């Protein structure tokens, strides 16, 4: 790994980070920003792009999809701020936008912003996202609030459990942003290989149905990375997934995974 002291030093990134606002031309990588409402997602977005989206202590602030850009070590990143949602399974418009972007938009990495003070609740969305995509980073935001409220997070254990990089941050103070950028770079360049957590405790009768479909899906679409998730969606009668199987659009999710990567335990 190209892990020399200089590139991993936050100060290095500070210098090479250019906030590009809405200048979205010729980007090298696409970063998706997902998260529950009211987790400071917009603040993270703003501190990466230099834009000023409104943030507020109210669920459901960011209504439309917002895009911005930054460049880091000569590479240009487009960052897409997805609507804040509690879940990706409940079929509201917001959830569909977020879900479709993560599934079909093929972001090079998805940053999941969660609220450190309400981690358990936020893990719902995180786990759902990890079912869809392999490349993700967990940004545990609002650490300042958590500490004020006498809550601490063991980021190493969390990273081990989820199999993705975990960054403790406090975006309002700019804390954790350099580390977040470093992780983004690590994941998109393949320096960090995610081995994401997948659901384990599906009850046996459901698992039978899920596994049966999963096998059929893998036989039909070899290399599909999230076949089990697609199977789950089929069992929920998700029309969009049904259609995407009918017209073969679903196979677009396979392309990005085509290069076989050696799995490395982190």
């Amino acid at each position, binding site marked *: 790994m190209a892990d020399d002291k200089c590139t991993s030093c936050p100060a290095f990134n500070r210098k090479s980070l250019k906030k590009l606002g809405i200048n979205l031309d010729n980007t090298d990588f696409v970063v998706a920003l997902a998260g529950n409402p009211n987790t400071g997602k917009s603040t993270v977005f703003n501190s990466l792009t230099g834009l000023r989206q409104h943030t507020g202590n109210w669920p459901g602030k960011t209504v439309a999809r917002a895009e911005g850009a930054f460049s880091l070590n000569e590479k240009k990143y487009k960052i897409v701020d997805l609507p804040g949602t509690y879940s990706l399974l409940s079929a509201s418009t917001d959830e569909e936008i977020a879900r479709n972007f993560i599934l079909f938009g093929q972001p090079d990495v998805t940053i999941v912003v969660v609220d450190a003070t309400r*981690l*358990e*609740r936020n893990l719902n969305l995180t786990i759902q996202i990890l079912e869809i995509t392999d490349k993700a980073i967990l940004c545990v935001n609002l650490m300042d609030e958590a500490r004020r409220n006498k809550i601490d997070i063991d980021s190493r254990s969390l990273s081990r459990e989820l199999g993705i990089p975990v960054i403790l941050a406090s975006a309002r103070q700019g804390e954790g942003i350099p580390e977040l950028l470093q992780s983004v770079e690590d994941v998109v360049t393949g320096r960090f290989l995610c081995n994401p957590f997948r659901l384990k405790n599906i009850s046996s009768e459901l698992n039978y149905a899920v596994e049966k479909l999963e096998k059929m899906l893998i036989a039909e679409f070899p290399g599909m990375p999230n076949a089990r998730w697609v199977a789950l969606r089929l069992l929920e*009668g*998700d*029309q969009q997934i049904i259609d995407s199987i009918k017209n073969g659009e679903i196979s677009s999710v396979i392309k990005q995974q085509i290069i076989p990567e050696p799995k490395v335990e982190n």
Partner: protein
Amino acid sequence: MNESMQALIIGLSALVAMFLLIWPKGGILGLFKRITRDKKRELIEDSLKYIYNCEYNKNCLCVDELKNNLSISSDKVKNLLHSLEETDLIKTENSKYSLTSEGRSYALRIIRIHRLLERHFADQTSYKDTEWHDKAENAEHSVSFEEANRLAAKMGNPIFDPHGDPIPNEKGQIPLIEGKSLKDISAGIIVKIIHIEDEPTNIYSQLVALGISPGMQITITEKSDKRIKFIANNDECVIAPAFAENITVAELNETEQDYTGFSLLADLKPGYLATVRSISKACRGQQRRRLLDFGIVPGTKIYSDLESLGGDPAAYIVRGTKVALRKKQAREIYISDIEKEDLNG
């Protein structure tokens, strides 16, 4: 002086006239809608549906019952059956009527639309449970099959209607549901309601008023020729056997049985902690998904934290998050293992 009196009277009458336009029962506008409906198509579709139901329940078709069901005269029934036969929707063998395959697929399409509409009214609108059937009955004849498919897609292709009936799929396939009538279950047995017949409406609305719905587990405590007693939702209900005929149930084995000693979240006082057992099936659609998204699933610890100024809603702490629930919602969440926990200490 006089003029303004006149104006006042004219004004008042105009208000009354406007009012009558929308009330009662949709008023004059509603009447106009009812008159302009396509009566013939409705009759054909309703009778096909009826014949299909007879066949599904393995009853043979009685012309009298068809007549009552559609509330038309005997002559009209004869004409109707005749025209159905002419259009190859039904056939007669040994003077018994049965559906042709076209007739059956037509009937199933109508049933699909009807049940999808009921599902839609139950999940995606705030109409009351007693209104779903009638609303669907009114709307089903003007909804095209394609519209119904779009509706289904939007709802995540539901497989059961809110009364527990399976919804035929696009190809008109439908599984048989196995179940017994509540009338035939003996005392002391725990069963799960799988279907509540929505016709006739007066019986259905009384059953709904008892607070029972498909998916609910009930325990039969007493059974005689005169009445059947059972426990549902911690409440004792008494119904006549004639009513019990309209409820289809399935017996449960041990592992499927819900925890029985539950209370309602609405009764949990501030300062107490409990474990969620289940969410009532009466909580549907988006509302149910919200609760699940909040992490209110079986096994969740829930702490009653605050009451608002008026006492309703109250705030609960679930998975480290404070959420407000109205009493009505809190009555649909079953809990157990209540213990005092003083976080304010």
